[in-house]
């Protein structure tokens, strides 16, 4: 189905709005002085732009799926849903950055612009329909991320984070390209839509080349997704980056890479056979490893930010379980998981950020007796922690329930069991923070400036969906179910 580029652009409005927002912000930043007022203008501009993009994206969820730009980009409800999550995540991270002291005032504008750029890359990645666009998306996403990671110029750890991120990223992108070129060599196409038929008649030699090439291809995505064994960079990068950047990394690139991974898996491995079997086997191991590495790593952490970073690896592993099953139940579970994970992560990082700004570090002990000082915040944090661990009736439980049921439906009982046991492990460190907040005496009674009425209200507002989606999740699951992937 061919359509003119102009007509195609009509289906590409959310991305265009994000682009325009980014350019507009650049102009704004250059024009206005970098005082409080100028920044206010910039933030409102970014928020308005992203909000419009969100509305358009959400509004077109029910539209018919459509490949555009000579089939290189596909606009389907699945990618639309992911884009909504990513836009909301970016908005959250931008708000967080406006409140955080972790980003120097003179760099706040840059953060907003770069985050919007990363979002752009993420949106491209989520709807990429051929390997080059996919690569383009990953690179757009990555290059700006390297800069974001090294945002605290004077901090050694931040520079280290940026460098590490860039080195790892460069290497894995190279490996990925290498893998892609082999896949192209074997299949003769880079279009996802043309790959399906080609896969049906392959010789044994071709198959033996394809599997390692897929692994190399996967290395690039896996690196973005921070799944084991490509997770080595995460702790340092997450630790060194300023807190809003970490929150951003934990949501947007992850969801984008997950979307791409799901699509790729659907394209290449939907047909039962040797190819699918080996892939499922490999992905099962990767999912199990990722969860375990993330959750076991989180146990020993002193810093809450680092704990959350490790736990985000664990959650990525959980979501990969939804990819392993290669069906719509899995895709639905991923979308549900992503939307609840978004709210939980934002609340956790928001509260941690305010504590971090006040005390200069975010060690667990800083949360001692939090409930006696900021009861609402402590309750919100506790709810989010329980939800992340998967305790009903919170939305995190429902998300895990969905993922586990997708896995059990395919009868991968061992994987489901490992996933479940990982929840138990994660409960241990999530409980640690609840324990300190509630059972310990308060260390100081000083006010935390960040936690004014406005910010508290925002935290509470973000916590409401965490609870409500755990009880009334019928609507969201219908929405996630209708968000089908188009393979064409």
């Amino acid at each position: 189905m061919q359509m003119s580029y102009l007509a195609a652009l009509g289906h590409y409005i959310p991305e265009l709005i994000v682009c325009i927002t980014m350019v507009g912000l650049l102009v704004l930043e250059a024009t206005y002085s970098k005082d409080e007022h100028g920044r206010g203008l910039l933030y409102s501009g970014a928020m308005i732009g992203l909000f419009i993009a969100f509305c358009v994206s959400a509004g077109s969820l029910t539209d018919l799926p459509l490949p555009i730009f000579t089939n290189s980009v596909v606009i389907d409800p699945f990618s639309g849903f992911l884009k909504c999550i990513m836009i909301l995540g970016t908005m959250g991270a931008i708000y967080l950055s406006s409140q955080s002291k972790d980003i120097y005032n003179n760099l706040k504008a840059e953060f907003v612009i770069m985050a919007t750029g990363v979002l752009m890359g993420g949106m491209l990645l989520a709807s990429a329909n051929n390997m080059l666009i996919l690569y383009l998306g990953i690179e757009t996403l990555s290059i700006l991320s390297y800069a974001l990671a090294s945002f605290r110029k004077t901090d050694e750890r931040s520079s280290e984070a940026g460098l590490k991120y860039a080195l790892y990223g460069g290497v894995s992108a190279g490996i990925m390209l290498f893998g892609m070129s082999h896949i192209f060599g074997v299949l003769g196409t880079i279009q996802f839509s043309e790959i399906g038929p080609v896969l049906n008649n392959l010789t044994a030699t071709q198959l033996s080349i394809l599997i390692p090439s897929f692994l190399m291809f996967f290395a690039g995505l896996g690196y973005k997704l921070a799944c084991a064994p490509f997770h080595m960079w995460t702790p340092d990068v997450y630790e060194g980056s300023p807190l809003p950047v970490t929150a951003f990394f934990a949501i947007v690139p992850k969801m984008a890479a997950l979307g791409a991974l799901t699509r790729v898996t659907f394209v290449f491995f939907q047909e039962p056979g040797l190819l699918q079997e080996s892939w499922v086997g490999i992905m099962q191991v990767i999912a199990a490893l990722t969860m375990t590495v993330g959750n076991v790593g989180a146990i020993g952490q002193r810093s809450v930010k680092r704990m959350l970073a490790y736990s985000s690896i664990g959650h990525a592993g959980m979501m990969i379980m939804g990819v392993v099953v290669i069906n719509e139940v899995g895709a639905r579970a991923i979308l549900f998981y992503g939307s609840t994970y978004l709210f939980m992560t934002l609340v956790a990082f928001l509260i941690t950020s305010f504590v971090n700004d006040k005390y200069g570090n975010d060690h667990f002990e800083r949360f001692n007796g939090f409930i006696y000082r900021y009861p609402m915040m402590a309750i919100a944090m506790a709810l989010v922690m329980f939800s992340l661990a998967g305790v009903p009736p919170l939305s995190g439980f429902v998300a895990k329930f969905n993922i586990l049921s997708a896995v059990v439906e395919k009868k991968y009982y061992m994987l489901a069991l490992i996933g479940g046991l990982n929840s138990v492990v994660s409960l241990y460190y999530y409980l640690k923070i609840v324990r300190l907040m509630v059972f310990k005496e308060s260390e100081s009674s000083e006010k935390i400036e960040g936690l004014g009425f406005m910010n508290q209200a925002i935290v509470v507002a973000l916590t409401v969906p965490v609870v409500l989606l755990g009880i009334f999740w019928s609507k969201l699951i219908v929405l996630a179910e209708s968000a089908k992937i188009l393979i064409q």
Partner: protein
Amino acid sequence: MHGTSTLLNWILWTPFIGVVGVILLPYLFSKDKQDNVVRWWSLLNTIGSMILAVVLYMKFDTSVPGMQEQFAVNIAWIKQFNIFYSLGVDGISLPMIMLAALLFFLCILSSWTITKSVKGYFALFLMLQGTVYGVFLALDFFLFYVYWEVMLLPMFFLIGIWGGENREYAAVKFFLYTFFGSILMLVGIIALYYASGKGVDSFNILALSGGKFIDNQVHMFGTVWSFSKVFFWAMFIGFAIKVPVFPFHTWLPHAHVQAPTAVSVILAGVLLKMGTYGFLRIAYPIFPQASVQFADWIAVLGLINVIYGALCAMAQTDVKKLVAYSSVSHMGFVMLGLAAMTVHGMNGAVLQMFNHGTSTAMMFLLIGILYERSHHRWIVRPDGTKGFGGLYTQLPKYSIVFIIAMFASMGLPGLSGFISEALIFLGIYQKYTTITVLALFGLLIGAAYLLWMFKRMFFGEVIEECKSYTDMNAREIFYMAPLCVAVIVFGIYPTPVLDIMKSSVGQLVSLLAQFQ
């Protein structure tokens, strides 16, 4: 007969209304009155709860086996997964509801002396009550699981905030252990959902029952396993941790010793029964053939519980820990009754669940009363000196109630424990003669540690410290009295409780008999 169908809703939601009241009501009163407002409101709430439970009892038709149609509630919750909000009551859950209603009321009275964040305490306590009802009433497996898990939250905070010195460790251990068990159960729930074809009944506990999954298989580790065996064990571990069955019992002594009195009472009196209730409601009916097959294991584990729990109790120097281990031992009898799978054994097991609820609640309440005076619980202090001595002459009223509680717990004829244990032995003797004989030794050890404890604490010279203790006050007598009555009345005339349960238990036994 659908006229009274809102009754179960009222029972379930009354405590949650109570929670809302505890949070909001104090704002209407001045600061110095707020604590008492919370206390009285909670008390009224639990009285209301008790009245509802009595109404349920009056309307209950003892001749009907299985779920009582006239109370059924069934509303779609999540249509995509066929999850329902469905409640029901039968002869096995009704005694548990009655027990919970009574104990929560008494515990509110016994918690009158709590002064640390009163509002939070009573709110969590009522929330706990609601979730306990939820577990006993839920007929939808998903709903059951949700209540089963939510119950951990109030428990975690109740132990962790109002508990003893080592409370944090105990709270975390309790939470993690139970959560671990629940996860296994969750995988089982989902597996059952798919095995039964994702239909309207796929989360319905009753519809899943009857041994439908005999031919299903599980492929794991390159071998083929029987579906029902694998998931019977998944459920088994989930419930066994709650009971607690050896070797999953290690959380219990910590949780009990650290928990405040009322929470210990609920823990031993009601929460442990949720484990055995799980066997009766879920593991047995859904996997009858696996249950029959593994009955020997259950019996052996029950025996270990009886003997090991009793021996551990004997070694304790902390009186609360002693009673905690005695619970392990007594729950072992319930497991033995369950393993028997005969009418007598099962009836005995359910009756023992009820009777142990009352007698162990008495023990814990009494220890709480003593603790409020002494601020320690050592029978023998770590340095070897006596912790208590000659209480009998100092606290005569207290001692009499203690004697009743102790003998009930020991299983002395004429008191409630005897009947249920006798029924269990009657039921199990023919099937497991050796185990019965060995379990009788458990009774003997039980008598030994209780009497030994009693001797050390209540007889002998009055030690200096004990001279200042005052006897039970009116409030304490008031909340001990109903339990004393229950223990004595059900010891002489257990028919009311047996009448409620017998047709439901009979139905379960005949289901199991098909697979013997």
